């Protein structure tokens, strides 16, 4: 009899472990979106010291531009390339004409301006695409599930984890291996040095803002099959990105990555074990970080430190 | 020999990989006017910031009247009786000279009173005017601090520091940017203030402090090079070498 109970127990442990792994993977997939959004936010803050309150609306814009491209050419992969370019360019125009006049005028001003900008983007999308939202299916080649040995996992979420990893590597190469990246890293540490070197700082800032916004747009497109596409889809994202940034440490790209995954995993586990606490769990995490490590897990020592 | 008012034991300060101060131990006394000197980059400002609580040392302890004050919050220093002036003028630029001193004096009396009108505290006005008179700014008391001449701002800074009735006054290059004439006047004022309290002075120009100090501390490369009376310092072999080329 006793070995039967042990067998049951072992099976129970096995099931729990599988579920644990599944939740972990789901959390990482969820976190991948947070990582992309928070990276853009942190990149922009790290160099321009601007908290971009319009970030979530560029996220939403990314989903809409993606839906538009797919409606036009019907190809998800083309949208994947097109969205960051289009949204990034829109971001650069905003930087050039709206944000640039505010440099050196205190940190609240660009923040408030970007908030207004976000409202404008939101309302324009409502005017052009309607308030109801539009359908956005998972691309056929990425729908269904794959057998990971221990459990079946949605193919799209696996793709999400993969593409985020690719983007991270690409961003890392950009920052480590290109002259722009060098300037960005130097600029994040000491703006005076960049100016002394005689580099046109405003051009660097324009590019950084564009890259940050492109990341937000891309995240919006990637989130579209999961979260759906509607004008208000960005609203919770802003708050989520703030939580990630506070947890990870403002301006720290490494912190954004770790905190994004951490928040994703936290939300995934609480929504499985205590569903009513799902939304609150990330705020509790943030509160804990604020109490014990007010500057965030990875402070602000420099980019990718 | 009196008990040390401020005692520094084994203090080091590192910024990343850079060691700004290493293992400094000194006692400061209430009845002395001690000057901290040293060439540029000797660690004077860092040392001053550790003494005045602007940031904690990486290692070591600071005691004040026998009490450990290492890492104590900045605002507590004024209440313990340690006041400081900043190297770069640091005032409330939009307030008048009078209001600058008055708000500093108010900190000793009331900080969280949200009820009584400020105008009721007449004694603060009297105190502010008295301090302005002491530093020679009484006639300029209604001028906006930001509009005062540099020398006057430095004097106002002293008056603001005095408002908390300190037992110990820490001054970071009080004569920075002053003409020789103004600097001499400032030194006279400091000497006058020393009658009632201990003073620690950071000064770049060695010549200025030799006459008025009764104790000199020399820093070099973040280390304590020498400590003694002006006479001892003047004849100190190492100090002479460090200051080679400068008239001692």
């Amino acid at each position, binding site marked *: 009899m006793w070995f039967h109970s042990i067998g049951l127990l072992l099976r129970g442990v096995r099931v729990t472990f599988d579920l644990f792994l599944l939740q972990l993977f789901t959390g990482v997939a969820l976190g991948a979106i947070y990582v992309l959004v928070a990276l853009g936010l942190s990149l922009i803050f790290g160099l321009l010291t601007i908290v971009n309150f319009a970030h979530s609306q560029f996220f939403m814009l990314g989903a809409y531009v993606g839906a538009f491209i797919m409606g036009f050419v019907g190809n998800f992969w083309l949208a994947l390339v097109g969205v960051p370019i289009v949204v990034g360019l829109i971001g650069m125009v905003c930087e050039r004409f709206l944000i640039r006049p505010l440099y050196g005028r205190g940190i609240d*001003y660009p923040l408030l301006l970007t*908030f207004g900008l976000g409202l*404008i983007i939101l309302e324009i999308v409502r005017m052009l695409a309607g308030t109801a939202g539009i359908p956005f299916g998972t691309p056929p080649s990425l729908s269904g599930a794959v057998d990971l040995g221990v459990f079946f996992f949605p193919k799209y979420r696996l793709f999400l984890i993969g593409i985020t990893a690719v983007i991270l590597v690409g961003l890392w190469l950009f920052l480590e291996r290109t002259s722009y990246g060098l300037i960005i890293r130097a600029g994040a540490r000491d703006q005076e040095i960049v100016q002394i070197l005689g580099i046109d700082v405003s051009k660097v800032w324009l590019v950084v803002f564009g890259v940050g916004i492109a990341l937000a747009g891309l995240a919006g497109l990637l989130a579209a099959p999961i979260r759906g596409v509607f004008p208000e889809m960005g609203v919770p994202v802003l708050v989520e990105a703030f939580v990630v940034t506070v947890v990870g440490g*403002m301006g720290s790209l490494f912190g954004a990555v770790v905190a994004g995954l951490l928040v994703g995993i936290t939300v995934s586990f609480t929504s499985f074990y205590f569903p009513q606490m799902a939304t609150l769990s990330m705020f509790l995490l943030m509160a804990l970080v604020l109490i014990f490590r007010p500057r965030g897990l990875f402070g602000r020592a420099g980019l990718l430190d | 020999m009196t008990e040390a008012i401020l005692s520094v034991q084994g203090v080091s300060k590192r910024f990343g990989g850079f060691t700004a101060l290493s293992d400094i131990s000194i006692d400061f006394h209430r009845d002395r006017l001690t000057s901290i000197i040293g060439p540029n980059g000797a660690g004077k400002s860092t040392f001053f910031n550790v003494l005045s609580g602007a940031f904690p040392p990486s290692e070591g302890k600071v005691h004040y009247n026998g009490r450990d004050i290492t890492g104590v919050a900045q605002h507590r220093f004024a209440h313990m009786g340690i006041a400081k002036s900043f190297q770069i003028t640091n005032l409330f630029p939009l*307030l008048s000279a009078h209001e600058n001193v008055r708000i500093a004096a108010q900190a000793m009396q009331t900080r969280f009173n949200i009820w009584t*009108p400020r105008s009721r505290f007449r004694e603060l006005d009297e105190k502010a005017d008295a301090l302005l008179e002491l530093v020679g700014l009484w006639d300029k008391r*209604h001028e906006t601090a930001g509009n005062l001449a540099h020398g006057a701002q430095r004097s106002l800074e002293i008056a603001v520091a005095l408002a908390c009735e300190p037992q110990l006054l820490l001054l970071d290059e009080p004569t920075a940017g002053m003409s020789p004439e103004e600097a001499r006047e400032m030194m006279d004022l400091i000497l006058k203030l020393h009658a009632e309290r201990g003073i620690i002075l950071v000064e770049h120009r060695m010549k200025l402090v030799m006459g008025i100090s009764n104790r000199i501390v020399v820093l070099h490369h973040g280390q304590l090079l020498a400590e003694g009376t002006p006479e001892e310092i003047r004849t100190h072999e190492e100090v002479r070498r460090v200051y080679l080329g400068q008239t001692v």
Partner: protein
Amino acid sequence: MSSKAERNALDVDRTGEQRQVRMPALIDLIARHRVLAAIVFLMVLPWATPYEALAINILIFGLYAIGFNLIFGYAGMLSFGHAAFFGLGAYGCGIPIAKFGFPWFVALPLGVAVAGLAAAIIGWLAIRARGIYFAMVTLALSQIVYYVVFQWVSLTGGEDGLRGVAVNSIDIFGLRLNMLDPMTKYYAILVIVAVALWLFSRILNSPFGGVLEAIRENEKRAAACGYDIKGTRWLAFLLSGLFSGLAGALYAMHLSVVPIETLHYFNSAIVVMMALLGGMGTFFGPFLGALVYLLLEDIITVITVHWQLFVGALFVFLILFFPRGIWGSLLHWMKQ
């Protein structure tokens, strides 16, 4: 938080007794008797607005903006979470009336107390975060309040809002005020707002008001003088939350329902906009901002549903071209 130089460049309605700047006699008179001037203005306001309910909204949101301005304009910290205090004031006052049948004079202070408690906790957490974090953290923490109220349907009504906050009449010393009559309601609320304004002015004139001014001008120096920066900011945040909570509680009594939108982050943004529009750090600015904002909203929402587009554009315009706001610019021109 803005740089020191930037703050200093902005005109602030200085509260010190020694006023250096010469202003025209009328403005000077208004500045000296600012509470009285505000009350006189508010007494005639309902005769100038298209309808009384709008005047009541101006009254309530004006108070909300004044409370917010304590932390934004006077303490120099941009909070993006004040909807939490306005909303909790509204729910804290509305729930005792609607669910437990409490009289209004018990419910109103309860609402203010709930808002104050939330401000104490959120403020304590947010002030630990330095500088630019503050706006993000206050926004994030206020979202907690939103989610909790949203999910606690049995108590709060959730998405549909809280219904049945009926205060039909108020009895004061045997005098029965009919709160269903908009004019009576306006003046009843005005009495409470007037007391709040007097309290607010008193705070600005107190030693604490002076400390706020000193910290905004030079934080380092204020700390060296012996002022506890975090403690001072926390108290300012708490007081600001109390005023916002009072505004929310009055809003619940005015509407007889509490919509969930009171807690929405857009409501936090509205109050930033009002303070900015009128002139941050000035005594009358926020009220003026509330007035102009609500009038604009009233006119534009009749014409188009895309009101938020105008709000967004107004934000951008104000920041780029008109950062002093209406009253702030007026003061600035007067001084020149």
